[in-house]
């Protein structure tokens, strides 16, 4: 892993009226790392991520994503990132091929690029016989893998995954994390939010958000040492209790 910063967040805040969803957070993410963005529901991780992917304007502070400022260059940020939402957002009434063509198209891939990518993606996932099936007819696990691959179509520098493994079985989760590893190995930075603490163990570094602030940020190993516990789950519980 290099020490080249690909995300640099400085004093980022987001207020909704009197409510402070994200309270003055600062952190860096390095190129090629798997960065876990943890927190309980409502801790502010989705809001923070929305600012990083350029669909929500920060109330104050700044963030550079792939060297572009989210405050002023949101469009450039969008071109350089991939995004997979927690709903595996593909179109159920379109076939696998049509979905790939559509998403390739809106990211500005040429017809030939799309053709190439489709063939490669289909063979990687072993979906040769399903190409012309509607996505809605696929099992959840496949949808999820497909959704991840589609988020990577335009070869983004960073891919943001918003709770990507919600609702899938442990085996599929395991396979999914293997895909994540393979991608990170190619040099893509992975920014993943989750509330499964066992998944936190797979990340290179994790940050834990509690009530709008980042309360801890380090590798899982160091965090466990620091809090003198054996699992990330316990780290998380200790942090949450301290606040209460």
């Amino acid at each position, binding site marked *: 892993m290099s020490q080249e910063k690909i995300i640099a967040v400085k004093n980022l805040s987001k207020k909704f009226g009197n409510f402070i969803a994200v309270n003055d957070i600062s952190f860096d993410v390095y190129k090629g790392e798997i960065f876990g963005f943890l927190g309980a529901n409502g801790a502010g991780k989705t809001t923070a991520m929305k600012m990083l992917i350029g669909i929500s304007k920060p109330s104050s502070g700044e963030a550079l994503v792939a060297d572009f400022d989210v405050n002023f260059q949101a469009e450039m940020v969008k071109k350089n990132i991939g995004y997979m939402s*927690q709903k595996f957002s593909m179109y159920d*009434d379109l076939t696998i091929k049509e979905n790939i063509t559509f998403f390739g198209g809106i990211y500005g891939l040429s017809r030939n690029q799309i053709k190439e990518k489709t063939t490669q993606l289909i063979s990687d996932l072993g979906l040769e016989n399903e190409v012309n099936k509607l996505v809605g007819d696929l099992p959840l696990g496949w949808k999820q893998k497909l959704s991840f691959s589609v988020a990577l179509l335009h070869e983004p520098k960073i891919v943001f995954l918003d709770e990507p493994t919600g609702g899938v079985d442990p085996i599929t989760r395991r396979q999914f994390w293997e895909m994540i590893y393979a991608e990170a190995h190619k040099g893509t930075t992975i920014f993943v939010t989750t509330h499964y603490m066992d998944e936190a163990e797979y990340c290179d570094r994790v940050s834990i958000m509690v009530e709008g602030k980042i309360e801890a940020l380090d590798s899982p190993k160091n965090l466990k040492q620091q809090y003198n516990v054996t699992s990330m789950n316990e780290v998380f519980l200790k942090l949450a209790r301290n606040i209460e």
Partner: protein
Amino acid sequence: MKRFLGFIKKEFYHIFRDKRSMFILFGMPIAQIMLFGFAITNEINNVNIAILDKSKDSETQKIINKISASQYFHIEQTINSESQIQSIFEKGKVKAVIIFENNFSKNLQTAKQGKVQIITDATDPNIANTITNYTNAILLNYIQEVNKTNIPTYSIDTQTQLYYNPELKGVFTFVPGVMTVILMLVSAMMTSISITREKELGTMEVLLVSPLNPLQVILGKVFPYVFLSIINATVIVILGVFVFGMPIQGSLFLLAAESILFIITALSLGILISNIAQTQQTAMMMSLMGLMLPVIILSGFIFPISSMPLPLQIISNIIPAKWFIIIIKAIMLKGATIDIIWKETLILIGMTLFFILLSIKKYKIRLE
């Protein structure tokens, strides 16, 4: 541009693969126009009536022949006394009874006045009214014929002329009406549903994270419906002209331009709704309650605005459909040109701009 085309292609996949959308888009216009054209009508045809002729002379016979020769009435039976009237109405066999007084012909000649009584079954007031009017018209016509041959007497002769719709055909009001309803339905309801669907499924988020800008996303969602609405309007006009004999006095070009303006008005309303509603269901309810009902009830399509209570008349002014119906009726029936309907056109343009601005404002708030 290529991105945009890909987006539109995707949108058409959605529409063509959804049976419900297909039905609303293509089944509804045809079903509605057929319903309004054939079933829901104020015109009468072959209404069953009874005759009670107490005079039984040559004059009454001439009148009865005239009545029975008209396409509006069918003489179901002749009765002999007033006591039968109640019972035949109760049986529901006839809608009206026409009674000629004793010595009708004699009175006509000596007193210059013959009496005819028309009794109608007013459980259906509209039909009762129409029957009375039609019978009066037949009698009047008869009197005019008689007066031609006899020595002229003093009388006031009213000559009624009905401009623009001389036969008082219902089709002349329902073609513009159905067109308005369909354009509103397709443009506003369908777009608001299709946009909220993306929100509900989470794909809207993915689209907003993509390099497509929000304006492109909205235009991409809306464009297919502009196209389909234009097709729908064309189908309705063609059906109206060729099946129901609707005239188009004015310029087709102006008609098309005004229709496109109204489509844009409806689309901007659809976008506004989709900005407020979070789910497809809410969007559908808002479109049905907030748009469809006012369009049907307050636009002057079915109920004349001038006979509404004042508060409703005032409210009807904020309904875009009202202005559009005035415009297309003027073009179709009166052959109006733009210098006659510019005021209504400006009102529609103003409303459209207002809805678009409001949508943009709401949209920004949502993205915050």
